[in-house]
């Protein structure tokens, strides 16, 4: 099947108007260049009914995890998604619109982005947010680049080694062709040491980037980090878990120049890794240096309030090779989902989800440690929803055994933490997990050893 609408008579009429016999005549330029064009795909298409069957087939080749409580994290999280989010984001007025280049007929999208920006600004405590980036990793890379460009003399980025290693790879890729160099800050016991940080901040480092919480799930001492960076005159880039910010202090309070993060947790499905949503927030003085789109509120020619894309001269379609970034398409629909989700939570919901997650994750952690069967990685450290424990066996063997027992018990830490040993597993507890699920998981884990 196809989705065209022209009838044979329509085509004849059009060909006659164009004074040609067949549509091939419109392709003579191509025909002169490429003779016969062969595509090996089956020539016939599928009907809708056949398509459904075909994709059901693909779906069934995935192992059914619908009954397995999910304790996996590592950069993608199984949070609850209210029906309202699906309902709104599937409205074709949002879904089938383009980038809001004509503001008079795009106020819906524009206002939603403005509201998204406002939510992100309030959560992170930063003055300005953009309309979204591809994902948390690219947001972090672009945040580092934006700050690196602001120092003409110092060319080095100090990157905490306990940032999610998948993200770190993206940061390395983004800096490949630039004049900037990356130095990694080692993190023993899964945490940044302020002494080591202080020592490593030499005269060549212009930006320090870390994540809060880090890849192990541990909360870093943002206050101390902020003090050191301020004293040394080094720019401060932090990635955060947005869902902790109703309860946990934002690095903005400690002088962060850029706060980025992965917004998947805000109403977006796991989706096997995408589409996700990077958010990017900074201070007002960086607004002309930011990557990506920004929506501003202004007035129309009759004085009525309205929204437009603004500061567009930063962007590739105007500034070309001097643009602050090449980003064009972003993750607008994912940002809309996040916006609807945060609207439903509001002030109280954002606090209550944070508390709920902390209570559940700590309940599970305490039970596991009390059992004496697994060990803490760093017993001094604090965490939000994800924590590491050291097992008597390899983490990948452990998660595999647990899957056979019907539980997605976590992510082997070495998948995402460069400094981890093979026996450490990362366990995430979201608000979706019930007490029964947690108790059952703890029982099954502890009875293994």
């Amino acid at each position: 099947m196809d989705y065209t609408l022209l009838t044979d008579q329509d085509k004849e009429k059009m060909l006659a108007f164009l004074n040609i016999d067949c549509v091939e005549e419109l392709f003579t330029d191509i025909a002169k260049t490429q003779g016969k064009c062969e595509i090996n795909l089956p020539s016939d298409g599928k009907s809708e009914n056949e398509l459904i069957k075909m994709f059901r087939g693909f779906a069934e080749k995935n192992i059914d995890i619908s009954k397995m409580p999910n304790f996996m994290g590592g950069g993608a999280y199984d949070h609850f998604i209210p029906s309202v989010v699906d309902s709104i984001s599937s409205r074709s007025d949002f879904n089938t619109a383009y980038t809001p280049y004509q503001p008079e007929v795009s106020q819906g999208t524009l206002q939603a982005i403005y509201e998204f920006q406002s939510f992100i600004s309030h959560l992170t405590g930063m003055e300005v947010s953009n309309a979204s980036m591809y994902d948390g990793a690219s947001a972090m890379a672009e945040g580092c680049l934006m700050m690196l460009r602001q120092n003409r003399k110092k060319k080095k980025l100090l990157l905490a080694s306990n940032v999610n290693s998948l993200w770190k790879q993206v940061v390395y890729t983004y800096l490949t062709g630039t004049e900037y160099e990356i130095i990694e800050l080692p993190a023993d016991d899964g945490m940044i040491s302020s002494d080591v940080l202080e020592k490593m901040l030499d005269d060549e480092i212009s930006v320090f980037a870390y994540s809060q919480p880090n890849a192990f799930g541990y909360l870093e001492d943002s206050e101390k980090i902020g003090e050191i960076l301020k004293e040394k005159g080094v720019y401060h880039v932090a990635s955060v878990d947005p869902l902790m910010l109703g309860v946990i202090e934002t690095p903005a309070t400690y002088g962060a120049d850029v706060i980025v993060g992965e917004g998947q947790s805000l109403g977006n499905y796991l989706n096997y890794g995408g589409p996700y949503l990077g958010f990017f927030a900074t201070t007002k003085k960086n607004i002309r240096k930011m990557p990506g789109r920004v929506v501003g509120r202004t007035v129309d020619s009759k004085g009525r309030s309205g929204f437009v894309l603004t500061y567009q001269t930063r962007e590739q379609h105007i500034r070309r090779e001097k643009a602050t970034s090449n980003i064009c398409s972003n993750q607008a629909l994912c940002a809309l989902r996040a916006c609807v989700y945060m609207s439903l939570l509001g002030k109280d919901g954002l606090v209550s989800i944070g508390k709920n997650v902390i209570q559940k994750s700590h309940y599970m952690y305490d039970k596991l440690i009390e059992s004496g069967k697994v060990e803490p990685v760093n017993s001094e450290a604090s965490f939000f929803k994800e924590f590491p424990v050291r097992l008597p066996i390899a983490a990948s063997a452990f998660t595999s055994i647990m899957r056979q027992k019907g539980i997605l018990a976590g992510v082997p830490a070495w998948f995402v933490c460069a400094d981890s040993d093979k026996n450490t597993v990362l366990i995430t507890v979201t608000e979706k997990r019930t007490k029964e699920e947690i108790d059952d998981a703890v029982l099954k884990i502890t009875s293994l050893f």
Partner: protein
Amino acid sequence: MNEREDLIFNINSQCGLTFPEFENTGSQNDIPEKFLRKSALEINNAGEFDVVRHFTRLSRQNHSVDVGFYPLGSCTMKYNPKINETICSMDEFTRVHPLLPASFTQGNLEIMWELGEALKDITGMDGVTLQPAAGAHGEFAGILMIRAYHIDRGDKRATILIPDSAHGTNPSSVAMCGYSVKEIKSTKDGTIDMDDLKEKLTTDVAGLMITNPNTLGLFETDILKIAEMVHSVGALLYNDGANLNAILGKCRPGDIGFDISHINLHKTFSTPHGGGGPGSGPLTVKKHLVEYLPLPIIEKDKEKYSMRWDKEPSIGKVSSFYGNFGVLVRALAYIKALGADGLKKVSETAVLNANYLKEHLKKYYKLAFDKTCMHEFVLSGFEKDSSVHTIDIAKRLLDYGYHAPTIYFPLIVKEAIMIEPTETESLKSMDEFIEIMIKIHEERKNNPELLHNAPCNTIVSRLDEVKAIKQPDVCWNK
């Protein structure tokens, strides 16, 4: 027309989503005080029904392709089939965690494999990555691959050539990869100036990045010669696949000399634009670039699918995980629905529609290049002694219920109006559009004031963009 909708922050009703305190059995909340947020959030609560009404009302203030014609050149605003939304929303796809082992995700991997194979087939290439999240992201990854290719050969090159008709993302992506950009002029006929190319094509050139058909809607007829010239100095030829919709089943970039091509799934392969994203920008490459593809690589061995992560000399990762999987599912569904014949029909119909519109409209608006076009064409809104500009024509179209074409791009056409009808418009819808464009042409002559003040039927009129910059308001505050 609806009233403007108040901001969500001005609603203050019962919270729409809270979570009860967890009945804590002995464990204490032991996050030390110093980590806790010190100031309360300065936003309100909104109940579920308030939220639903708010966003539903907002949605009604958008033009979308499901509501009407969207002739936005270079953006390929075609119909987004509903079945694709149904398919990609299946729980079996949406709830899959990206770090599950391959043995649990064979269906997903098969979808990615099949899509990769189809894209290689359609573009005539040997290798593929689905990881880039958008066209510009694909460009960035692709240029880094070109860079890695030259470095591997001990070849230091510093320049990438780009025609002056290129999308802004091209020079911007090139600059992000550390190359300097040199612009190649276009001829009076709208194609690459071969003399200018010859002059600038030195051994310092790492690659030439072109869009074929180009942004003027014209096929680069010298492409074989261009490819030969580029390769003869050891450079590579990059295809910006934004305009692939014109050549499906007619021509494969890999067959006519391109080494690498990105593909915008959200243009050619019908995935919805979502108000600006998410898109997807896979790259297909010739053999000599395969080893530089981003990681992981999806592999098939007999009937088993897996991911390969070994490093050198890959450019590394460009996304947190594997790309916008949800978008990939839709694109494969689209390709399967159409088959090879359907894809060919897409291009034939898109090109027929564009030429039909062009031949009608050129009687009223100056046509930048008067010849057969591909899937799009460029008019000029400039008319000597008229006070009406392209912006006025575009805004007047909004009054008549249309989205405006792409305007002021490409930069090399004065007051450009770039129109792309796509293959999914009916003859009736195009005839109606022609009628309105003629009407606007009449208004331009007889009542220019009307155009200067347009739009007047929309929920807001032209917005003060100077104020938006001079008195920035990008975040709601109490």
